[in-house]
């Protein structure tokens, strides 16, 4: 009887476990936001109309502020044109909007887009556009196939939010893309993206030239190199240095920066990395789920994109690279963001130590080469010189080269009442360190200074130095005085 009572309980338990695994009543219903938009029967004729203003890279079009869908007209011109690929090197680019990449388009989830492609009369070839954001034949390739001197219009509904690549899809497609025919279109999710201070548009692509990297003159497309996927150039925004040097992207310390990063390819996968920063947020592959935080390098497939953002915490030059490093070093995949503003040593100090490194194993060296310890200082001048070196090596990282310290973190030594008041105390602090609240020049600091493993001679030198630098004036500290403080 007891047994019989247990069975139903066990079975019920299994049933509960199954339900929790597979949801209520079995498999969940397949759902998608795109299908809802596709089936919403919106009256296209009643949608408010607007026309999209093209803006050249590296600028991204501004965020969309309206809260409802609109009917958006986008028109872009295709042109075959000679432009600079690198210094002294020209290339016949095939372009959307006369730039590589083409202008970034920005619409909102649910918008109805009337897209017009105009092929300049001077073009030798027909062109078209495949927008990866389009649900429909060829992503619009069929509807936009356009002979030179003509234009075509097709319309589509932006069903899926995300960041998408667009490119020319006329045979031979790889060649059209390799000549620069790509760009990005952002379909903003209904709720928008988190507000940031700056947005930039960067797109990687590679070029297959007949001549080697740097060979001067007008270079033509090399089909064999393209098929082998061995480009001479791998660049951001269409040319070597397009977003470096004088053309660097700009930001200020404290600003948040979003990069709409795409990869036109046509062949290579990008290991997109910003030297000196860490992506705070990454929308991998340009999707709408914030699926990574704190990322060093994000992979961007050919014909794919990613949305990354970070805050510029300290000044400096942030270097954009494809971390497949020979592409950066030898093929041009380098960009730059110049961040201006005040340094913040609590985040980053810059070089604070520039010292001679003497590894162990010196005994292996011939005796004549053996390093001898520097002779102990014999007078005040030598003491000060030795102290300056000890200071730079051990103290300046926190107290700063000029002894001013860092507000709220590291107390100043310059004109410091705390330092000068008690010689024995200062010796003890240098030898043993200091922890807890102290008041220096009327301000409270509550921090930790580690004990420094210095020789008595170095302690004497550095204290003599700080007591006679940065506006301080005091007597020298002798080795004997240091020895007496236990």
């Amino acid at each position, binding site marked *: 009887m007891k047994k019989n009572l247990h069975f139903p309980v066990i079975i019920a338990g299994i049933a509960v476990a199954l339900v929790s695994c597979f949801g209520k009543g079995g498999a969940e219903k397949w759902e998608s936001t795109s299908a809802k938009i596709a089936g919403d029967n919106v009256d296209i004729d009643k949608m408010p109309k607007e026309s999209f203003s093209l803006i050249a890279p590296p600028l991204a079009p501004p965020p969309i502020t309206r809260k409802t869908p609109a009917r958006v007209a986008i028109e872009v011109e295709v042109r075959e044109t000679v432009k600079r690929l690198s210094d002294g090197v020209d290339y016949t680019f095939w372009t959307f909007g006369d730039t590589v990449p083409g202008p970034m388009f920005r619409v909102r989830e649910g918008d109805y887009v009337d897209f017009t492609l105009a092929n300049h009369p001077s073009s*030798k070839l027909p062109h078209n556009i495949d927008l990866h954001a389009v649900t429909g034949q060829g992503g619009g390739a069929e509807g936009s196939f356009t*002979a030179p001197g003509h234009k075509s219009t097709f319309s589509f509904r932006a069903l899926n939010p995300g960041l998408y690549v667009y490119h020319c*899809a006329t045979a*031979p497609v790889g060649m059209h893309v390799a000549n620069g025919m790509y760009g990005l279109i952002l379909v903003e999710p209904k709720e928008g993206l988190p507000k940031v201070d700056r947005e930039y548009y960067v797109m990687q692509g590679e070029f297959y030239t007949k001549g080697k990297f740097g060979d001067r003159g007008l270079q033509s497309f090399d089909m064999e190199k393209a098929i082998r996927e061995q480009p001479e150039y791998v660049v951001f925004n269409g040319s070597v240095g397009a977003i470096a040097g004088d053309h660097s992207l700009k930001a200020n310390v404290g600003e948040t920066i979003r990069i709409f990063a795409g990869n036109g390819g046509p062949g290579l996968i990008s290991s997109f990395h910003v030297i000196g920063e860490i992506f705070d947020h990454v929308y991998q592959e340009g999707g709408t789920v914030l699926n990574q935080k704190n990322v060093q390098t994000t992979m961007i497939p050919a014909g794919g994109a990613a949305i990354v953002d970070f805050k510029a915490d300290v000044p400096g030059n942030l270097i954009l690279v494809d971390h497949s490093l020979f592409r950066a070093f030898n093929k041009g995949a380098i960009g730059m963001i110049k961040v201006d503003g005040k340094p913040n040593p609590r985040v980053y100090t810059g070089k604070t130590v520039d010292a001679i490194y003497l590894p162990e194993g010196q005994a292996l060296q011939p005796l004549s080469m053996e390093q001898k310890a520097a002779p102990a200082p014999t007078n005040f001048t030598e003491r000060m010189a030795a102290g300056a070196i000890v200071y730079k090596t051990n103290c300046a990282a926190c107290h700063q080269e000029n002894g001013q310290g860092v507000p709220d973190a590291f107390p100043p030594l310059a004109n410091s009442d705390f330092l000068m008041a008690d010689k024995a105390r200062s010796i003890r602090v240098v030898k043993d360190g200091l922890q807890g609240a102290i008041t220096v020049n009327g301000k409270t600091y509550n921090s930790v200074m580690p004990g420094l493993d210095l020789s008595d001679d170095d302690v004497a030198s550095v204290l003599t130095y700080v007591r006679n630098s940065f506006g301080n004036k005091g007597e020298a500290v002798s080795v004997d005085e240091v020895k007496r403080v236990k």
Partner: protein
Amino acid sequence: MKAAAVFLLFVFPLAVPAAEVKLPKSVYSPLFRDPGEADSVVGPLLVDKTPVTNQEFLAFVTAFPQFSKSKIQPLFADGGYLAHWLGDAAFAKGEARFPVTHVSWFAARRYCESRGKRLPTIAEWEVASDARSSRNEAKIMAWYGRPGARLRDVGAEPANKFGLTDAHGLIWEWVDNFSESIMSGDSRGGSSTESLFCGGAALKAKDPKMYATFMRFAFRSSLNARYTSVNLGFRCVRDMDGGGE
């Protein structure tokens, strides 16, 4: 603009026959083919040695004013028809022997008819132009790399193995069945552009490395019989009665 630069031609020698070269009976093996589609035989044929020039076309529009710049019906040509001409019977000085461009398929076809000729088919043009030789492939590829390059007199470059000149690297040329560019004429269903985009183009191609050929076929399939282009001209062919190999 400058009157001095305008070359007016009031009298023209209608009877001067264009130089022709003979294309012997040849086999055309399509780059793109439908399943089961076989090689075809073209020729023998007499092919214009050079593309039709501005001067030759002027003779035509004078004889057939309905094909002049001002009188052409929109049904037969788009707004770019003879756009580079300075009027109904005038083009820039020095361009008399340039290939005529900005002409529609209707106009090109009528021109050939008026000479007792016709436009070549894709197969005829492809064979006669020796398009598949690697030298010509390279020439075409180089041509794309020079956007906006100016035209020049026809016949300025060495002739190909059949005696034709200017088939590559100067202009595109109309062919009679341009609209069958990708699929063969009897293709069952599907639009002619279906296999032209992205990977589709390579699926049916015998050799996916014939980039210049892809471009030429892509160009043809982008056309409509009314269209005109700065880089698009034509030449005519004539059947040889009773063979004559």
